[in-house]
């Protein structure tokens, strides 16, 4: 019995187990290796959700990669319920003229991704591609081309393999559907 979730969260079911994830990440790595052969590639992981995916994916890509991460936060704002988005950790690698692959854990509405693309576009890379472990195509509000993704999902609340519920569950080795304990 795992102690990772403590007492506050329980798992309804395992949606993607370790072996399924491992195989799919290798496939994605092979696709990227083929598509980006001969290019200068920078892999940018979006903190913190993509940590494990970023780590496994980068080791499945057989190219001379440069790695970096980017993080977001929001500042509370009295004029709205949602605050103001800000970058808490910007990239350090120079991406000018390089092929950038943004690595996310999950793309739902695509708003964060759209923001990321605008931010990274301003640094003038040669191209920007998206690679997400999970994608919910029914909830996408933006027409963003997600070239690589692991699995399609619906409206489940998922944790594990980097994804959390109130910062808990990121270090589960699989992806599971959760429900809070009453």
């Amino acid at each position, binding site marked *: 019995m795992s102690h990772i979730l403590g007492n506050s969260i329980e798992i309804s079911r395992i949606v993607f187990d370790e072996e399924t994830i491992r195989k799919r990440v290798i496939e994605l790595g092979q696709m990227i290796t083929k598509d980006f052969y001969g290019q200068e590639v920078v892999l940018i992981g979006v903190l913190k959700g993509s940590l494990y995916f970023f780590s496994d994916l980068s080791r499945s890509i057989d190219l001379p990669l440069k790695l970096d991460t980017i993080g*977001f936060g929001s500042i509370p704002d009295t004029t*709205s319920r*949602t605050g103001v988005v800000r970058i808490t950790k910007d990239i350090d690698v120079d991406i000018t003229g390089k092929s950038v692959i943004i690595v996310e854990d999950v793309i739902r509405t695509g*708003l964060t991704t759209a923001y990321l693309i605008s931010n990274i576009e301003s640094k003038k890379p040669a191209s920007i591609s998206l690679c997400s472990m999970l994608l919910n195509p029914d909830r996408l509000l933006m*027409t963003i081309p997600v070239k690589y993704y692991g699995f399609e999902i619906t409206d489940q609340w998922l944790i594990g393999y980097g994804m959390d519920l109130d910062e808990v569950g990121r270090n589960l080795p699989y992806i599971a559907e959760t429900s809070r304990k009453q």
Partner: protein
Amino acid sequence: MAIITISRQNGSLGDEIAQYLSDKLGCDIIDREYALSNFFGEQSSGSIERLNESAKFFLSSSSGSDITYKDILIKRITELAQDATPGHDIILVGLGGCVICANCPYAVNIRVCASEDTRTNRIARRFNLDYESARTSVETADRKHKRFVSVLFEKDLSNPELFDITLNTDNSSVEEASAAALALIEAKNRRAKIAIETKEVGAIDHQAEAIVFKNDTEAEFAHILDMYEIEWLYEPKTFPIEYDAEGNIKMAFSPDFYLPKFDIYLELTTMEQKYVTIKNKKVRKVREMYPGTNVRIVYKKDFLSLVERLKRFC
């Protein structure tokens, strides 16, 4: 955008801004020199010289015709404005373009100015003149510019209503002033593109209307988009989706938001299920009747989960 007119004071960096915009947009510049060589057909060198020197000469008829040079100038500039299409811009420097294109919906009329002192110093440096000579040159040029527009069009160049934007280069570089102009050109380009598409598909254009959100949810959603620096237009278009036997519109749909960068319309629904069903039907009809139009519904749970995730941060 069709046509960008630039009216500039001598020494205001107007020509430099025109060149910068031309390089950025990849479009041609039509200036006085080009107009005199190309607009009026075969002319004697004397006529060209007089056109160059005297505004009044534009009111006389060209040789062997009843048409004045002013008529030809207006006709040629109007033709240029009509021929230009979004993405194929033309920059028109001087020539009273702001007056001729005043009623052209896709024109951006720019005024470039600076204080007399700044302009005098620039002219003095550029032409190696003493300050007094440079100031005389600036004053003469100002008089001639004003006179040209006044004589040909009976308009006062100092009237700000002739322009969409005025750029004061006293404390702005060419790049900084051009950035403001480019932002306006881009916004107008987008408006023009939507207006043309709207006309083509028989939808109704609301772009000129002021933004009045129908409820707090729409205002909050607009705020979220702003936060993510995603450009949006509010209810820019109405799609007729049902007509009666006489062709009158029976049912129409105005999606709440349009995101130009993503070419997608978003309709918010935070209401009861029965209204959601109607909205779903409307979206289906828009997709059927206007192929290629991207419309998505943002359901109540999407919106709430977005707000929740932003609070915690996504």
